[in-house]
């Protein structure tokens, strides 16, 4: 019984992290129909800033890391994506790849390609014992932070004018503009939220692994994309659900697969995503979108 509970906690913790990654991608895709492959680099750069400021008191470290994610995301929107917002999806996809490659190469040239260790929140990796279940404190923090962000995001989206505008733009961007919603402001807001989520992921990933490398954002962004595909592209609740489903499936595979198949865990996971695309391409909770007649 305690084993099952332990696995559930592991799944919830991993799912929380994946949900953060997926939400960061979904919020931009939902509003601007932009697949931001450079989201991983938001995480990477934020993590490197964390490394630089890690000697400061931890609340300041967290704030500066989150701020980095937000500022870099806004800069991406302003200097790269805004110019191709009306282009076809393939163009924005290529711009995303280009921005990702640019930032990664700048990082490699400036800080080197080798991994670095960072001494941040190391005590959070120690476990606490709750009802016979050993839970690393960082897992509790991850679940707690995700819960707070999900509640905060829900309140923002349902109680504030800008949140309602974001939801409207996700459903029918053109109609939202016809009602007076300023496209530049609403897309920038989506990028800022995405940057905040990337900064949060950077803090949690760095605290979890204790290391960082210029390519650390790439697997994170892939996981985020898979979770959004599973949940439903452009759907924020879908992204959160997709993240948790991916976390649960990952932990289930870790537990249930025979030792001989464990090296193929990721391959099997990706096979599940392909199957999802084949049999339910709209995802678990598809986004409501509207067509537009010209």
């Amino acid at each position, binding site marked *: 019984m305690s084993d099952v509970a332990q696995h559930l906690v592991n799944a919830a913790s991993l799912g929380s992290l994946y949900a953060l990654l997926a939400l960061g991608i979904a919020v931009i895709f939902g509003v601007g129909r932009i697949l931001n492959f450079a989201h991983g680099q938001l995480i990477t750069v934020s993590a490197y800033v964390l490394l630089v400021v890690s000697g400061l008191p931890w609340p300041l470290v967290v704030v500066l890391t989150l701020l980095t994610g937000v500022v870099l995301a806004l800069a991406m929107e302003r200097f790269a994506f805004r110019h191709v917002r009306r282009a076809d999806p393939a163009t924005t996809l290529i711009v995303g790849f280009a921005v990702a490659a640019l930032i990664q190469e700048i990082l490699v040239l400036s800080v080197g390609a080798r991994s670095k260790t960072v001494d941040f929140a190391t005590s959070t990796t120690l476990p606490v014992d709750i009802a016979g279940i050993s839970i690393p404190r960082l897992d509790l923090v991850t679940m707690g932070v995700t819960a707070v962000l999900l509640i905060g995001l829900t309140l923002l989206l349902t109680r504030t004018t800008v949140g309602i505008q974001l939801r409207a733009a996700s459903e029918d961007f053109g109609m939202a*503009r016809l009602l*007076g919603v*300023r496209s530049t402001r609403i897309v920038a807001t989506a990028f800022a939220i995405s940057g905040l989520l990337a900064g949060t992921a950077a803090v949690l990933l760095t605290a979890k692994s204790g290391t960082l490398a210029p390519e650390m954002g790439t697997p994170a962004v892939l996981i985020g994309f898979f979770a959004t595909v599973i949940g439903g592209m452009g759907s924020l609740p879908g992204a959160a659900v997709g993240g948790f489903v991916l976390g649960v499936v990952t932990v289930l595979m870790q537990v249930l697969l025979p030792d001989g198949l464990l090296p193929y865990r990721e391959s099997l996971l990706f096979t599940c995503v392909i199957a999802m695309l084949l049999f339910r391409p709209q995802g678990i909770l598809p986004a*409501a979108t509207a067509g*537009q*007649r010209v």
Partner: protein
Amino acid sequence: MPLLEVRDLGVRYGSVAAVRGVSFTCDAGEIVTLVGPNGAGKTSILNAVAGALESARLTGDVRFDDVPILGDAPERIVHRGISLVPEGRRIFTTLTVGENLRLGATPHGGSAEDMVSVLERFPILAEFRRRPAGLLSGGQQQQLALARALLARPRVLLLDEPSLGLAPQVVGDLFRAIADLRDEGIGIVLVEQHARRAMKLASRCHVMGHGTFVQGLEGSDVAEVVGAYFGGDALP
């Protein structure tokens, strides 16, 4: 000087000319109708005026209060005082009725008086304020689309096929609401399949074919001429 003036408007989608050399005006407190077969370019004209055709090539001139607006962003145009109620209503189905109305008030922030006035005009919306808009009936959705547009305090309303898919009784209510809006001083450009009904309200009618105006009609003989054009049986 007319409130809205469209001069020699052209709309091209790639190599296809959807609208060619169209000119008309709309003043405060009048209804101008555009009628014609599907594909004649009526929707393209409304979308071009509202700024919703950013991917098309637009030529000519559109002036509102003598200020050129052709090619402006749609959010700028609605702030100026032109609101579009598009074909199919395009309400936000996952948002509540109240949230849809709140969005309509975006250009002016939404005063309580505006909201009260709109809900008095369409009382069913007050009753269903917390309901997801996608659950409303077709007629209720059309009321919501109109109410949402009115919250932007438009001086010109562009209505694209507002009666599409509605029951005859609901269509009657809708046309009464449109007449009320005209009487309150709002200029209305109406694209409508219920041509005879639209003609009764209109002070001017432009008949379209193949992207251009083929006839301009005014006054009491409008319905008769349009009836002859489409065939009397085709008119409701």
